[in-house]
């Protein structure tokens, strides 16, 4: 295992040391490990974990990453041509979602942010559903696949309390399942996150927090988000382990998530994984990142992006060829194009739908409003 141990500030500060004649003692120490197996050139820098020893085993996760990149490209084009609403691409972060989801069980529950396309696709959310959601249609959150997974969460960090609630439900039912809460670097600044993490520690809940630290919360950089040296150490204060992984190294992501979920299922409690990556695209299609960061910084991060890295490794390992790549791109493009065609051809929901899912049974006063709305619809055309 290749770990770099980072010592957070507190431990290095001299005021924490016992230099006052025994009156002051150090009563707590902690450290944060950093996990990486592939460097940015795709070279193996540490002994690979068991699941990755056969390079072919990594092909499904590679395909999932490429599928998302193709989807993102298509979705941005749809938005630019007025056929999709505001859309948040996840370019550069694909290894995290694909890695996390591939280490989960189907009956675990995923709590996505709005930038978890690869995790959602892996778990069975359809490209059509993601298009519907960003195209302004609630049916996009009625996943045909993972029925218990939570929908995309737009208000930042508000999904964290749900994740610990679901984790508590799993624990109360005695089921060996886990809740996986995705959150961003900005999200860890919110009380929602702290309150949820605190409960996860107190109740030893089967929950994993994956912090996608992509360095930017729209225009606010990581350094302006928190003075903590790592975001992983926020777990320490809540009483459970936190660690960092190279979030552009899918092997490191999968390895860390597997360990965390095994612990969770064995009643070992919560874990926080801070996955270091970089948001190569704009925050959303209505954001212009050139307003607040230099092109040179972005170009530099393209050199460590996750897809090229894994492709280099797979190619060097002899399990991937140029022909394989071309075939994969063609397959992904065909799949996404079919989803787009289906999305564009899909009729809007009937107007009554805005009333029909508010309550289990529509209250009388809303039935009246529904009738009025229907009359308006009819007379308008």
């Amino acid at each position, binding site marked *: 295992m290749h770990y770099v141990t980072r010592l957070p500030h507190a431990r290095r500060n001299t005021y924490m040391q016992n230099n006052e004649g025994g009156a002051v003692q150090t009563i707590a120490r902690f450290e944060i490990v950093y996990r990486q197996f592939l460097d940015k050139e795709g070279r193996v820098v540490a002994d690979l974990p068991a699941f990755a020893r056969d390079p072919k085993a990594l092909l499904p996760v590679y395909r999932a990453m490429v599928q998302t990149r193709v989807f993102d490209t298509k979705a941005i084009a749809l938005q630019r041509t007025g056929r999709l609403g505001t859309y948040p691409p996840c370019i550069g972060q694909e290894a995290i979602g694909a890695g996390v989801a591939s280490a989960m069980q189907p009956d675990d*529950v995923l709590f996505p942010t709005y930038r978890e396309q690869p995790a959602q696709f892996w778990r069975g959310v359809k490209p059509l559903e993601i298009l519907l959601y960003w195209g302004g249609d*609630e*049916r996009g*959150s*009625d*996943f045909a696949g993972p*029925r*218990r997974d*939570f*929908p995309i969460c737009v*208000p930042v960090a*508000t999904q*964290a*309390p*749900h*994740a*610990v*609630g*679901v*984790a*508590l*439900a*799993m624990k*109360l*039912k005695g089921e060996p399942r886990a*809740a996986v809460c995705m959150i961003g670097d900005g999200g860890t600044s919110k*009380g*929602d996150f702290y*309150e*949820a993490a*605190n*409960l996860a520690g*107190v109740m030893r809940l089967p929950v994993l927090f994956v912090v996608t630290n992509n360095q930017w919360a729209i225009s606010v950089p990581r350094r302006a988000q928190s003075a903590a040296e790592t975001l992983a150490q926020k777990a320490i204060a809540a009483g459970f382990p936190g660690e960092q992984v190279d979030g552009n190294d899918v092997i490191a992501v999968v390895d860390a998530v597997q360990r965390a979920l095994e612990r969770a299922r064995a009643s070992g409690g919560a874990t926080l994984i801070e996955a270091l990556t970089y948001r190569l695209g704009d925050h959303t299609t209505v954001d212009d990142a050139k307003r607040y960061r230099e092109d040179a910084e972005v170009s530099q991060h393209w050199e460590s992006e996750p897809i090229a890295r894994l492709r280099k490794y797979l190619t060097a390992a002899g399990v991937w060829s140029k022909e394989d790549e071309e075939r994969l791109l063609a397959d992904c493009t065909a799949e996404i194009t079919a989803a787009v065609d289906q999305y564009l051809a899909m009729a809007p929901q009937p107007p009554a*739908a805005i009333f029909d*899912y*508010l*309550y*289990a049974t529509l*209250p*009388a*006063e*809303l039935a009246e409003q529904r009738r009025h709305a229907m009359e308006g619809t009819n007379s308008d055309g």
Partner: protein
Amino acid sequence: MAEATLIQAVNMALARAMELDARVLVLGEDVGVNGGVFRATEGLSKRFGPSRVFDTPLAELLIAGMSVGLAAEGFRPVAEIQFTGFIYPTIDQIVNHAARLRSRTRGRLTCPMVLRSPCGGGVHAPEHHSESPEAMFAHIPGLRVVIPSSPSQAYGLLLAAIADPDPVIFLEPTRLYRAFREEVADDGVALPLDSCFALREGSDLTFVTWGAMTREVLTAADKLAEDGVGAAVIDVATLKPLDMPTILASVEKTGRCVIVHEAPLTAGFGAEIAARLAEQALTSLLAPVQRVAGYDTVMPLPRLEQLYMPSKERILAAARRTLAFA
């Protein structure tokens, strides 16, 4: 059948609901061993165990948010917020998630949770312990907002709220917790939600009120009866969704309406009822609709809170204003 206070009736309803449905959980601050600061959950932890009745960390946002998760996974969480002054951090979770989970997933995930909280003033409580935020919640699509006004109502409505498949904000008037006792049959029978209760019939004037104010209004109605004026009293009980037909039927008969609530006047829930009367019953009205409410001030601390609370005198004055229109 035994006599019970409102707080005892809440406790009885919680116990009965937990007995009837293993999915019902009780959570909040100090609800476990301590039995709640008002003793609403007294004895429940011992009877049903710490996995069904448990204390949370001191974090109201979390209490609401984790209840969303518990409900989505099939439990029926009944969460307590210790005082409505502390309920505001839950609003984000209630607005953005609890109230819209069913709608935004087109019925895939649902949120059958109850958020209970003591509300209102009149008990000389410290700052932030006497607020009446019902109109804020009544503005949120997808919610139910319920306020009982008596022990038997608290029992039956709380059972109904817990059994309801959608989220319910259940506000319990602190002032009524131990104000009086009445017979409460612990029979597990729920009262209907979404329905007003006609507490008193009358043909000259209709009072519309809810919560602790029902007591003041009934006293005012007694006084009017001495003067030969028959005042009907409607206890709204479920503010959202509103049972307007019951209110309309009475006002169409009496032609006069006085709405009484403890929450501040402006954009209070009385404004909604008055607007609907203007829309739907104008030709029946013999006098302008009157509202008697808390002032648009910060809830005063105990030395001045009686000045704020709608009094019997203010209620009678409003009634007489409507009666002055022949």
